[in-house]
């Protein structure tokens, strides 16, 4: 029992990270019908931004909660700015063409970011400084949870609540919902759609960056290609929950994280080796696309052709 709980905690920890990244995929898709493939790399950019802040301000030597807060918010701000810049200079100019053009631009953008970072920082894995003390708390029996895991849960829940507030209680959130409902009508109603789209990118990128910094506290190895696999899984999570659907992204993220870890923990009993954890995420994607293309929480909207 305690082993199962332990595996669940492990799974939900990475699930929370997937959820944070999936939110960015899903919001951008909701508004632009674009899969922003560079989003996984923004997660990596966020981790590097946090790394630069933490090392340049000397937080590695004297870690504190304040240092963590500054690193987290700083990296979120930097990632938001980069997200907006990518939207402004890469996606906006091609938005008027077909969706495929934007999609391919996104893939190009993803490669550009990855190898730009390889070029600047080299592919050497860097170790992210520990900013908060990491201790183990025994829950019961053998089940333990580390403070860095608690941090991931708390911060990601907090960010999701803030996101929910922005989307449902603020004016810009209302505008986002309007744009996602129908971008042309929204424009006719006097909504500055360019601003709303830029804001969405900023919001999604900030969440991904938070995911990057949180992961780096849990698993301090950061490297320029770390966003590829994690980004893909978050994308699967967004599709699983129903792309365009915000609670769906969170649910999808947690499910993928849990499924992955449970495969490692218990897969061998049903003949699935533990190294198939990545395959499981994609098997789930294929099943979802076959059985319920709209995702778990997505509504089946008829597309006009």
């Amino acid at each position, binding site marked *: 029992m305690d082993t199962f709980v332990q595996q669940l905690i492990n799974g939900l920890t990475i699930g929370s990270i997937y959820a944070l990244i999936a939110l960015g995929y899903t919001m951008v898709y909701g508004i632009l019908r674009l899969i922003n493939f560079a989003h996984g790399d923004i997660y990596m950019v966020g981790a590097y931004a946090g790394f630069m802040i933490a090392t340049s301000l000397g937080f590695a030597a004297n870690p504190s909660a304040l240092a963590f807060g500054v690193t987290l918010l700083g990296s979120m701000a930097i990632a938001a700015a980069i997200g907006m810049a990518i939207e402004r200079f890469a996606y906006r100019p091609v938005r008027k063409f077909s969706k495929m053009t934007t999609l391919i631009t996104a893939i190009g953008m993803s490669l550009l970011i990855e190898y730009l970072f390889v070029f600047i920082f080299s592919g050497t*894995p860097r170790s992210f400084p520990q900013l908060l003390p990491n201790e*183990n708390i025994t829950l019961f029996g053998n089940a333990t949870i580390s403070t860095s895991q608690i941090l991931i849960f708390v911060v990601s829940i907090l960010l999701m609540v803030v996101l929910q507030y922005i989307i449902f209680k603020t004016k810009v959130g209302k505008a986002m919902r309007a744009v996602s409902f129908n971008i042309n009508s929204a424009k006719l109603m006097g909504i500055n759609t360019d601003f709303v789209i830029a804001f969405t990118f900023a919001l999604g990128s900030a969440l991904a960056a938070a995911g990057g910094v949180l992961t780096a506290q849990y698993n301090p190895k950061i490297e320029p290609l770390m966003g590829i696999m994690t980004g893909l899984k978050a994308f699967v999570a967004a599709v699983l929950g129903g792309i365009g659907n915000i609670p769906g992204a969170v649910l999808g993220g947690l499910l993928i994280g849990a499924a992955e870890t449970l495969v490692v923990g218990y897969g061998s009993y049903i003949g699935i080796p533990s190294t198939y954890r990545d395959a499981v995420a994609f098997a789930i994607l294929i099943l979802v696309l076959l059985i319920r293309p709209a995702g778990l929480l997505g509504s089946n909207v008829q597309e006009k052709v």
Partner: protein
Amino acid sequence: MTRVFLNFALILSIFTSIACVDKGGNVATTNTGDTIKVGVYGDLTGQTSSFGQSTKNGIELAVEEINNGGGVNGKKIQLVVEDDQGRPEQAKTVVSKLINQDKVQAILGEVASTNSLAAAPVAQEAKIPMITPSSTNPKVTEVGDYISRVCFIDPFQGSVMAKFAANTLKAKTAAILGDVNSDYSKGLTQFFEEEFTKLGGRVLAKEAYTQTDPDFKGQLTKIRNLNPDVIYIPGYYGQVGIIAKQARELDMNMPLLGGDGWDSPELWKLGGAALKNTYISNHYSAENPAPEIQNFVRAYKAKFNVEPDSLAALAYDAAKVLADAIKRAGGTDSAKLKDAINSTSNFAGVTGLITIDSGRNAVKPAVVLELDPAAAKFKFKETIAPEGAGSTTGTAANSNSMMSNSNTNAMTNSNMSTSNSNMNSSANMNKSVNTNSNR
């Protein structure tokens, strides 16, 4: 429509993840008349780039010394260095480039066995001798007679750790956590298990991870349930540091064992205090007071300002062995050079006496090092000699000068022996080295 679109998007995204960028190498243009071109390939920017950097440094130091000493047969050695980003397919590409475009006469590299295995057939086919400094998987030199190495191989390395676990740590049970995509790791897993079982131990679980796994707690939690005496983790430094950290987070405080893949200055930053109570097998100890080793350590530190790890030492030896073979072959005729390399015998390297055997492997003793995270140092623990090797290889620079006579005798008598360093002399050695190195 959406479905097709998403499928397409997924396929594209998979392509992006496997797409690769050729970074090109630094090729100096000179007249090839009075230089010997030697190709070096390694991971300079990828997941295991500390291996590639150390290897490059070690080779550069050796070549600098050779060229300052008048070169080989009056010719200077010119290096052509290529980055393979730690990817097997890229390793193959850059070795083709080294051979076909740069027309190198010999090749040094890689560290990771998977990459050496990818590139070796290219060198073999082109009949260009390739010496791998530190790929320990046995399959590497089985590719052909143009491929050789200056390090020991995994059947030995795996058995060293199994012996250490069973004899020194008195472990009865073990779990293995290996890297599923690495030939190095798979080989060590197999050989550790064989030897450990032979010594009466039991391997309770064999778990695996991939280098891109976001965390390892799933596998570790599974292992924790079985409560083994030791965990053997034959992986590379980028993952094992995190694995150690997460194991300790799960209250798993048993000794963790590893191989030479752990040897990197980066390991300390990744694993930190969690690396207490861990041991690795390695090719040499920088703490060994033998003058050959200390001269190398000093020269390396003066040039690169870091302590040489075992990969740097092996790379240095590989370059020296190559230069020696070129001298003996009287030139770079590839068949003669190959024969000269393969007949290397009792070459005194930093990592011990190097004799290339019929399988084109070097037979050398291994050292077991204990990790000391507080000082960020690998502390010498003991030397384990290879099977069947008597005192001829055992008394190389690598074997410890403090090894007592009775131990040396024991080694010649039993063909498998462990020479336990006695604690006092080991402590003395640490002290004397600490005063030398201000790190």
